[in-house]
């Protein structure tokens, strides 16, 4: 099999625009949801009221312990039976976001626990109201500590986003498969799609490592 440059140039624009656009939408949508929801999950799991912290913890553990693929199937093919109907991409973003929220909540938990006890004590000594202690003292420090790990999950979400093709989302990999099936030739589209991931994931990882080092000092 010889690399077909003409065909490569023909399919490249479509993969670059349409395919990559959907991949980015899924990644960014999923990541934003995961980062926001994860923070709330982390806070709720710390609640002093067991009827809040326990169920949230259990649900989060459950989501983390089941495959994303199964969750996507349930969201897309089972939920409509209960009257919940969404587009494939929206379903995919929610699936990715909720799944990764169960991971990011652990990142935030570690970040919160990493805030020195002295910070809480200083806040008490200054009589700072509890919610302000969270908002202006603890969370800014906890989130800052969490950034490198969150960056890693952003890359992970990006790399896992092709799983959305099982619920008919046509991302860059989904499009590559469609193009391939037209000619029974997958070498070019899949190679290009794979290279996209490589070209984006590697610089992103390097950036995160830099950020990690900067935060260390």
């Amino acid at each position, binding site marked *: 099999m010889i690399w077909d440059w003409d065909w490569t140039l023909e399919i490249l624009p479509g993969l670059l625009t349409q395919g990559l656009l959907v991949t980015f939408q899924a990644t960014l949508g999923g990541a934003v949801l995961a980062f926001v929801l994860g923070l709330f999950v982390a806070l709720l799991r710390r609640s002093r009221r067991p009827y809040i912290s326990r169920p949230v913890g259990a649900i989060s553990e459950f989501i983390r312990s089941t495959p994303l693929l199964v969750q996507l199937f349930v969201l897309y093919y089972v939920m409509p039976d209960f009257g919940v109907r969404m587009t494939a991409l929206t379903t995919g973003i929610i699936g990715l976001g909720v799944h990764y929220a169960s991971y990011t909540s652990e990142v935030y938990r570690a970040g919160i626990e990493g805030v020195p006890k*002295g910070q809480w004590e*200083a806040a*008490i*000594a200054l009589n700072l109201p*509890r919610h302000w202690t969270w908002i202006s*003292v603890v969370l800014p420090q906890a989130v800052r500590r969490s950034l490198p790990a969150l960056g890693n999950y952003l890359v992970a979400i990006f790399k896992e986003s092709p799983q959305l093709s099982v619920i008919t989302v046509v991302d860059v990999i989904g499009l590559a498969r469609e193009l391939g099936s037209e000619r029974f030739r997958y070498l070019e589209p899949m190679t290009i799609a794979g290279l996209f991931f490589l070209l984006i994931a590697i610089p992103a990882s390097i950036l995160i490592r830099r950020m990690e080092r900067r935060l260390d000092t």
Partner: protein
Amino acid sequence: MIRFDQVVKRFGDVTVLRELDFHVKPGERVTLIGPSGSGKTTILRLLMTLERVTSGTIHVDGECLSHVRRGDRKVPADERHLRQVRKKIGMVFQQFNLFPNMNVLRNITEAPVRALGVPREQAEEKARELLDMVDLADKAQAHPSQLSGGQQQRVAIARALAMEPEVLLLDEVTSALDPELVSGVQNLLRDIAHQGNLTLLCVTHEMNFARDISHRVLMFDQGQIVEEGPPEQIFTEPEQQRTRDFLQAVLNA
């Protein structure tokens, strides 16, 4: 101003304070000395409500710290009551505990704005006066990580004073400082002690500092007061052997 009655504090099996009684008058400056683990810091932490008593009661300005009266019964204090009594007390920590995510000015204004509802401009004006007093007027925009330990501790002092406490607790405030930075912080505290009518409760291992600022010195050992008196007496002619041994050890160190 401060009264401890039969205060017991245990951490698990370890008894840190044994039926401790003592009181501090308004405006009085009291220094607690004694070996590590003798319970001095615990006294400050109990007053700051960072710890709770195992038994006994603590009163600050006539108000009980740990309990509130409800009808005829005494029930453990809730957060609202604690916030009320804490208003009168400020604390400076050994490790400064400045908020690293805020600049110096914000460190000082955050609590007055959020806890007391002081308008921000007014809080900042006050903060700048305090920074001027601690000789750090040019560091308002700096972040704690850009300051030396001595500068950080002076900011922490300004931050505590911004809440206008009646009682200031000083927990080994120079112990974490490089030796050449100690005197700056001590001089500042000396000035504050001598110009105000702040009630001061101070835990320190710096005997000269204790002598300079305090009306009264309490010698602690194993959760109890071994000896107390004016600094001249404690430092020159202590009555108890335990005090003599301790002073000998720290002064020759």
